[in-house]
């Protein structure tokens, strides 16, 4: 699994809104995010659920999308956020 993961839902408008920001982030930093859709792919859903103890406390006690997750540091950011916040998550 990639170090940087974006859990997202196909019909989640916030996830869609974040896609251009993710593309910008990848272009600007050279980083690559693994984008895992969780409502139409049970394997991805199970993977996200396996990180529940780490992700839920950072996301209002639930599994929410979009969630940006650094699998090495366990840093996570949830929801539709400003570009700078996304970049801070990816580069710190």
């Amino acid at each position: 699994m990639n170090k940087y993961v974006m859990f997202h839902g196909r019909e989640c408008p916030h996830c869609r809104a974040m896609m251009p920001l993710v593309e910008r982030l990848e272009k600007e930093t050279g980083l690559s995010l693994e984008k895992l859709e969780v409502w139409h792919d049970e394997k991805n859903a199970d993977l996200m659920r396996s990180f529940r103890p780490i992700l839920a406390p950072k996301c209002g006690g639930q599994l929410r999308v979009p969630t940006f997750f650094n699998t090495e540091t366990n840093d996570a950011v949830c929801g539709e956020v400003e570009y700078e916040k996304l970049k801070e998550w990816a580069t710190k």
Partner: protein
Amino acid sequence: MKKFWRCFVCNDIHYGVLPPDVCPTCKVKNAYVVISAREAKSICGAAAEDDFSKDDFRKAIQKFTEGNEFMVNPDREKVALLLDGIFSNESHHGLKYCPCRLMSKDFDEDLKIVCPCNFLIHETYKGVDKGECWCGLFIRRPKTIEVKP
């Protein structure tokens, strides 16, 4: 613990810890008796209309918001996408789960993400001027400005 209850007069079904004191349909007092889940499912299954379209749901949530401090998001494109997700989730996963969260596979826990959920407690809504539920289907109704004569 929640149970199923049936009005012995008009057969309304109620699911809850306690039944209504007065049946909201036939207005009879103390009309509810505890029944089995099987009986409740049979009655509801037989009576329910199978065809509950996105438009029916849209109208239902519109009605639900009337008189409340929140409203359905006026962004029709966003609402259409969310309804696609909600109906897809019902079709594939059994209930109208929020497309912007994920089931935990704990049934009671997952009831918390069935749309409409109790978004009044979401940090994106509670105490937020332009608050909205996590997915954005519901938004706080803008305050109207009172014009003094």
